[in-house]
């Protein structure tokens, strides 16, 4: 049953350009953001919240801009590999430091690093274009250069494939011993140490993985926007990722996509109306979700079933 739903969802997503052509761009942005949210989701398994993953998101976009300048029209696949390397290495360097910490320190140190990057991107305008940011050139793909409309379509499939692949990878990773050990970090680090595994190293692996996911998300996001700006690493951006991950629920990797899609669609239609109070609404929703349904969107059906389960059985009995 679950496989059937998954297959149907995949078919629906891959045929989206033919069914809802107008939604291609917003769908691409959803996939890109979902990648970054996946990164937060991975860390949430260890009970850790990063308020600073916007820094890797920005790193992905700025890397695309930078390589566009250096290599003229870089190949999309080469660019992808380059971004994986850059976000992975920066994730490793920052991770070596932050993976020694948990909870408050972990969250706040990530926030601090992202704020530093934000300030640097704004300040070093000779290299980064300051607040205006850097233009990102359209890449080519194996010798093929895209026209404007081709490129939108190509980006749609690029981001979709990336997201599907990464979702699958995260799913596999979390089932593997290392992923299960990550969940153990949240629960009992002492026992983990006493079966011969370092909790810090386990978290570090997850951190590097999450940095790469956010980097790839930033790459896709930047390519679609054609622009890399400092606000990609502003705290509101990182907060948004955390918001979506919590909203989607930490129980299932599929909640990430569901959460991102719901979030972006609501924002897309509500933006004009609520732009001034968007952050306010997010904050209030987040508080409400945490206080009432801590398991998030994916956990909502189960909660409802539990709450109304009794009533439903009674109804059946009468029938």
């Amino acid at each position, binding site marked *: 049953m679950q496989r059937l739903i998954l297959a149907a969802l995949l078919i629906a997503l891959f045929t989206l350009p033919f069914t809802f052509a107008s939604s291609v761009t917003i769908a691409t942005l959803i996939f890109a953001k979902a990648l970054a949210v996946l990164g937060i989701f991975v860390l949430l398994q260890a009970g850790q919240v990063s308020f600073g993953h916007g820094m890797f998101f920005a790193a992905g976009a700025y890397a695309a801009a930078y390589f566009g300048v250096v290599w003229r029209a870089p190949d999309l696949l080469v660019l992808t590999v380059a971004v994986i390397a850059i976000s992975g290495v920066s994730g490793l360097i920052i991770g070596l*430091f932050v993976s020694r910490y948990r*909870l408050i320190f972990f969250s706040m140190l990530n*926030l*601090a690093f992202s704020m530093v990057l934000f300030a640097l991107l704004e300040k*070093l305008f000779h290299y980064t274009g300051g607040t205006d940011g850097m233009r990102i050139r359209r890449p080519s793909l194996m010798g093929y250069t895209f026209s404007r409309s081709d490129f939108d379509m190509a980006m749609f499939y690029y981001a979709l494939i990336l997201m599907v692949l990464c979702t699958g990878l995260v799913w596999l990773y979390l089932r593997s011993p290392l992923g299960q050990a990550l969940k153990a970090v949240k629960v009992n680090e002492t026992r983990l140490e006493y079966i011969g595994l370092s909790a810090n190293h386990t978290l570090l692996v997850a951190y590097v993985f999450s940095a790469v996911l956010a980097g790839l998300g930033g790459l896709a996001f930047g390519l679609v926007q054609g622009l890399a700006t400092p606000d990609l690493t502003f705290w509101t951006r990182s907060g948004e990722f955390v918001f979506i991950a919590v909203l989607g629920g930490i129980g299932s990797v599929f909640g990430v996509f569901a959460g991102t899609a719901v979030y972006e669609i609501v924002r897309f239609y509500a933006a004009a109306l609520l732009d001034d109070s968007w952050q*306010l609404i997010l904050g209030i929703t*987040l508080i409400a979700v945490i*206080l009432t349904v801590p398991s998030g969107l994916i956990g909502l059906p189960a909660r409802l079933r539990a709450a109304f389960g009794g009533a439903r059985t009674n109804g059946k009995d009468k029938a």
Partner: protein
Amino acid sequence: MTTTLALIALLDGISYASLLFLVAVGLTLIFGVLGVLNVAHGSLYAIGAYMAATLGGWLTAQGYNPWLTFPALMAAAILTGVVVGGLMERFLLRQIYEKDPTLQLLITFAVFMVLENVQRMVWGVQPYFMSEPLRALGNIELLGIRYTAYQIVFLPVMAILTMVGLRYFLRHTLAGAKIVAVTEDREAATSIGIDARKVYFVTFVIGACLAAMGGALATPTTSVLPGMGANMIVLSFAVAATAGLGNIEGALLAALLIGVARSFAVYIMPETEVLMPYLIMVLILLWRPMGLFGAVQARKI
């Protein structure tokens, strides 16, 4: 770098550190007692600043004596701390003390999002200025350098008064003793009849007032802008973490260290100004993972 420039940088640093200390000590006090890191602390700082600018601006516009802006700064800080901080503790934090620390962190982060937005809705994005207190106190000369008395006398004095007052309050008053008792052993304190809820409330309001006071006192020296709250929360965390979270005396030293290092960076390598506080924090934490005065606590197994 000439000695004059070095002296200016030092004075700058001290005045900046005084403000930093006020905010950070509130953050660290709340953490020490409640065990909650209030991410919205930066918003209290910003709202305190906006309130001070609004109140002071109104007084000035009405043609009142500029000296009245001093009580206005205090009033703005206390009003913000008691109202915003009080409401926050009473209606939100109280529900989450027993919850998972991750959720506590998320809730205060959510409050931060809300307050940043509310602040923008109320005060817009235009910068506010209110330099009356600065001008009222005039300049003083120190080793041949003219400097505003507000920054080099008033702010440090306020910081030291706060430090001394806080120490006296915690060590020599009944309310303070109750706070210390709850911090050390909540269960034991409750069993001898201390109302832990009340202690949490009072502590949080005091911490909130300190943040707002930092904001209010900063108003005469800087323009009040959106985003100042976000910057301050990470900065004050850097100070508190460098000192060791929960350590009040250490926060003063850490604030001085970071404040002075930052202002020297401004004069020597302006590009590194934003980096400096975090560089210091990272270096200290690499050396002592729980901060200068923090102790690693082993879990009992």
